[in-house]
């Protein structure tokens, strides 16, 4: 029987619904009954009869790359657990979906929690983790309730707990609630938070989670969507799964499109099988009437902005425009940005780039954890400078200062937040310098001096 979707929320013909098969599906509820009717937990039964290493090999063969932002191969990550390990192994599902522009995991948690649980229990079995945590951001209170209920249902049916389905494998999953900090999405910050501490990311080396993670034990941290894919990899087989998408950019992924398009929303597509132009014009129904594309943030707010009229030179020598970029990991990187978390933010010609970067800088200044110097001091400084640019109280050389502050952060911090907060500023200034300087007042050059600067100047004059 064909799957029916809620009217107005039907998937586009260009979509390939794997993970989002049950999202907006008529008659489908988050209950385990709904999931079981749909063939749920069958892959768990299959997996429990497999060799653990075989499961890891399937995931490796699938080419699955992490859907949280970094795009690291999931199977390789699982293989990092030291073979000599004697400590308990943990799996953490990173459900701290906080990257601005990203809203896919939330739908999985709300509408199809058992898909996540099944994938996660398979993952636990594969790496021999008897304990797993689902770290759900504070802003998803409903999701936490739904997932906890799902865990209880799964336990009642014997998919969790002791001796799962007679396999001899014990596994428990728990929900852990965040407290409203973006940095908890950073895996080592998340681990610290889970341990009850401030979520200060750990230095790497030595604290790579696969060796020294939760409670200094090997820990695998995977995104919600990534863990869901595991179930489908078992179902299809790694090699078959790898036929989805394009080489090295396999499978499907959910694009979260927001901004100035006719039909923003989530679209699950085969990786690399649709172009940016198709996302905008075909999936999203084009730009708003009478508007022109100005810029795109292609992979969550931390990814570098792309300008509408840019030309991108690829490794094979081809030169392509923004609309020709296939939505995959490697090409997006070659274009100087990243596929990141799949959050595509479309901006049209009505948008002030100064305003946009100020908005982002406000976010990052608010979310910097404050542990290490460059990010702690730099993020707020960037916000303050861009505050002034937006309010017309800046001189053109403030734009250059802003850029150099970002340069002073990038690559010097404990965690990737340093890049997350500096890349937007760097890329926006690089690509929209004239517009931003145009929002400044040339007559203010040399006029804006802090009190401290005035004191220093007085000293120099004396």
């Amino acid at each position, binding site marked *: 029987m064909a799957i029916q979707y809620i009217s107005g929320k039907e998937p586009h013909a260009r979509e390939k619904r794997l993970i989002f098969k049950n999202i907006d599906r008529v008659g489908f509820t988050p209950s385990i009954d709904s999931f079981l009717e749909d063939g749920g937990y069958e892959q768990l039964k299959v997996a429990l009869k497999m060799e653990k290493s075989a499961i890891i090999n399937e995931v490796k063969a699938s080419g699955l790359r992490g859907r949280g932002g970094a795009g690291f191969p999931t199977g390789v990550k699982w293989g990092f657990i030291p073979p000599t390990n004697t400590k308990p192994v943990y799996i953490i599902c990173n459900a701290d979906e906080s990257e601005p522009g990203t809203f896919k995991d939330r739908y999985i948690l709300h509408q199809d929690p058992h898909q996540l649980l099944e994938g996660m229990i398979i993952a636990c079995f594969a790496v021999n983790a008897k304990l797993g945590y689902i770290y759900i951001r504070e802003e998803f209170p409903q999701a936490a309730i739904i997932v906890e209920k799902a865990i209880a249902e799964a336990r009642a049916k014997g998919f969790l707990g002791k001796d799962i389905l007679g396999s001899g494998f014990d596994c428990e999953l728990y929900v852990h609630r965040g407290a409203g900090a973006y940095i908890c999405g950073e895996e080592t910050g998340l681990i610290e938070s889970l341990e009850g501490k401030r979520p200060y990311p750990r230095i790497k080396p030595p604290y790579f989670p696969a060796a020294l993670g939760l409670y200094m034990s090997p820990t695998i941290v995977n995104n919600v969507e990534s863990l869901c894919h595991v179930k489908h990899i078992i179902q299809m087989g790694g090699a078959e799964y790898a036929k989805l998408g394009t080489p090295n950019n396999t499978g499907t992924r959910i694009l979260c499109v927001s901004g100035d398009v006719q039909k923003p929303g989530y679209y699950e597509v085969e990786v690399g099988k649709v172009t940016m132009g198709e996302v905008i014009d075909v999936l999203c129904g084009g730009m708003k009437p009478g508007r022109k594309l100005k810029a795109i943030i292609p992979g969550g707010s931390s990814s570098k902005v792309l300008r509408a009229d840019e030309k991108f030179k690829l490794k094979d020598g081809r030169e392509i425009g923004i609309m020709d970029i296939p939505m995959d990991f490697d090409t997006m990187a070659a274009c100087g940005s990243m596929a990141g978390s799949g959050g595509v933010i479309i901006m049209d010609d009505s948008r002030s780039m100064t305003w946009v970067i100020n908005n982002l800088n406000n976010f990052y200044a608010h979310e910097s954890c*404050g542990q290490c110097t460059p990010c702690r001091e730099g993020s707020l400084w960037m916000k303050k400078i861009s505050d002034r640019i937006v309010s017309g109280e800046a001189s053109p050389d403030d734009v250059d200062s802003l850029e150099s502050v970002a340069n002073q952060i990038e690559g010097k911090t404990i965690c990737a937040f340093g890049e997350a907060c500096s890349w937007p500023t760097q890329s926006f200034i690089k690509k929209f310098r004239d517009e931003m300087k145009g929002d400044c007042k040339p007559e203010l050059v040399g006029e804006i001096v802090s009190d401290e600067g005035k004191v220093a100047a007085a000293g120099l004059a004396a």
Partner: protein
Amino acid sequence: MPAPEAAPAPAAPPPADLVNVQIDGVWLKFPKGTRMIEACKQAKKEVPHYCYHPKLSSPGNCRMCLVEMGMPPRPAPGQEPEKDEHGMPKIGWMPRPVIACANTVAEGMGIRTESTLTQEVRKGVMEFLLINHPLDCPICDQAGECRLQEFSVEHGKGESRFREEKVKKPKNVDIGPRVRLDDERCIMCSRCIRFTAEIADAPVLGFTERGSYTTLAVHPGKRLEHNYSLNTVDICPVGALTSNDFRFQQRVWFLTETNSICQGCGRGCNMETHARGDTIYRQTPRENNDVNSNWMCDRGRLDFHFVNSEFRLTDPMVKNQGKHEVTSWKKAIQAVANAAVGVKGEEIAIIASARMTNEELFFVKQLAKILGTENVDVIPRLGEGDNYLSAADKNPNSNGAKLILGSEPGSKLAGITELMSRGRLRVVLALGENLLKCGFERRDLEKIPSLVTLHILANASAELSQIVLPGNAYAEKRGSMINVTGRLQRMDRAVNAPGNARDTWEILRDLVVACGGSNGLHSIEDVFSRLAAEVPAFQGLSFAKIGDLGVPVLETDEKIPLLEREKERKAKGIIVG
């Protein structure tokens, strides 16, 4: 003919686990596991840092120690690695700097501490640290020993381009009885937090808020009040944590530091006494990894104010018709000799102190010998030790007293007290102790025809004494002591004794001479040489050989709890040690 079977070779020592590291172009060898920052230090290329401290875990948060680093690229299969002009594999430099504090050296690693990248990074971090700093150096206690100032000179920019409002934070925060907090000066290095959590087991400090608004604070309902709280002031690289006792008392650049030993207990924590002129302003721990690591207790370090006391004895005094009269040293010494010479030994007692130096105790022994008395002892002080540094023995030199006087401290006190109460003692010399505070009764002391007190402070026992001799305090003397673990340690003179007070050892020597003994000892070095000749444990030692860190002279099974834990953390690689 088969070669004769070689005799099994003696097990060769394992090859030293050394790795080749290039620092600023020079190839050097370091033991595996050496932190990059320590390797650079050994290569005389000091890397600036704030949060790193060898005795604490390394969070890598200040980013000041970022340096350019490289490794030889892995050669393609079948390819030989490319060599440099030294025949070493060529280094592929990484585009991003790495922290030198928490990373360890590796074979073939290159470190550049002076490259453009490294210098640019330091400049950037320095600028970031200063933009929200109040720059109130003129009124900051840390000025002159502030890492922000120090590294500003070396790595800072000449002018500020910060045009924004600074972040406002709490100032003059009362976080404990001895430590005060200025949050605007704090650079969030977390050294204090780590000290309280890792060393003092009293994790009362933490950060609140986030980002640039991050604020150091005590946890609700808690205070920074443990007996090691002032160490946080020492390790604070800036002026965020200051000592209530020291703040606003003196500019640090006017202070002269003298190596000394804490007198508060038998641990003998190594310390520096900071003085300007003849006034002591503060005492800070001095690193000694066999005694106190980098730490000392608050009680010990603050116990110097009595040296500056207005109740110091400044002149020798002899009682005339019930009233003390100032006299000359010559007359005072002669008065003691007059009272003691000719008196039978068993009618004389000497109550000395285990707070005396070995050199002073040497003369106590000489004096007893020449006066023919065996009634010689020191006052024991047993209290409670803690699980850190503080020892139960509250005397700093019980081991010296035992070794030099040849008896267990306190073993003869009961006998002396008995003699005193029966009025059998005609002469009692109280050397460095206030007898009324040590269990002796006023009515017994009043029975002594000739009570002599050698002390530094005016007190009730001195008041009772016929002769009062003003000696010098620990900070005013040179000498040696043996701590509870059997370590011989040295202290130096930080300040001069007030008025006509003299070196205690010289007073004792003069007493020996006046009572018929021979002279010939004119310096502490001389006295120690005599001790070394007479005391087997000191054999082969001289005062100079004791050095700034002391030498072990006695076997004891005494363990130092704090140091044991540090050793464990070092073995686990958590700290450098």
